[in-house]
């Protein structure tokens, strides 16, 4: 129980806190939550709204691409608008998928492992995001 309390203070994501935060004012909650559920909800919806047009745009661009030779794709990605939209798409995509994966992990996996898995997915996702944005900038 003591260990659990310690973990509760140290961890940065928990379903119970989220429920409390959703239904009550922050002052009423004893343990301050590092990640309020309302923020999670808002980011998920916000990234979804960004993803809908940009994802459709990407699918259309891929379907309209004449061929997938290296020079064609490079010149496609080298244009200002395309690289900008690609960066926005990747950021929104990774944010949305990290939030969704967090929900799935919270639903099916018990706590010590749950916390580590969420941290690991976030770390991997952010690393992938940084790498892909860097390569867009490099082109």
């Amino acid at each position, binding site marked *: 129980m003591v260990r659990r309390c310690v973990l509760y203070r140290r961890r940065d994501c928990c379903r119970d806190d989220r429920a409390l935060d959703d239904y009550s004012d922050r002052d009423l909650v004893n343990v301050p939550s590092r990640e309020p559920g309302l923020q999670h909800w808002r980011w998920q919806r916000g990234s*979804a709204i960004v993803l809908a047009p940009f994802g459709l745009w990407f699918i259309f661009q891929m379907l309209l691409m004449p061929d997938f030779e290296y020079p064609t*794709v490079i010149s496609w990605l080298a244009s200002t608008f395309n690289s900008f939209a690609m960066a926005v798409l*990747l950021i929104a995509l990774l944010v949305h*998928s990290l939030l*969704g994966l967090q929900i799935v992990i919270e639903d099916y996996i018990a706590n010590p492992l749950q916390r580590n898995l969420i941290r690991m997915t976030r770390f991997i996702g952010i690393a992938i995001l940084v790498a892909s944005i860097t390569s867009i900038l490099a082109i």
Partner: protein
Amino acid sequence: MGAVSTFSLYLLLETKMTHSRPRPISPHLQIYRPQLTAVLSSLHRLSGLFLSAAAVGLAGWVITLALGESIFTFAQQSLSSGYGTVLIALGLFGFFYHLANGLRHLCWDWGYGYDIKNVYRSGWFVVACSIAAGIVAVMIAL
């Protein structure tokens, strides 16, 4: 006597309750009749998981573009192989389904379409739209 009559009344009530009309069943997935709502909900989650993997693949594809021509052509070759084609087709279907059902979720978030009739209508609409869009996209892509 009192105890016996109470017990028989209990038996009578119990048989009446269990046999006169079907009682609600707890949702054990093995015996519960699949309903559109539940199936679409779990499909949303499954397609989301698949699309997360696809997102990693997309980021990797962009990274191979920066790494050079030989690596990019290798990625393209593996994408146009049999397995790659199947994965791309699945990804297209999953994308359109997740998009349509996500818009349905956004409508719910804004407070529209909450009654049972509209939930079923929008559910079948989502199924039809995603299958149609997926078939068209796969036919163009292949």
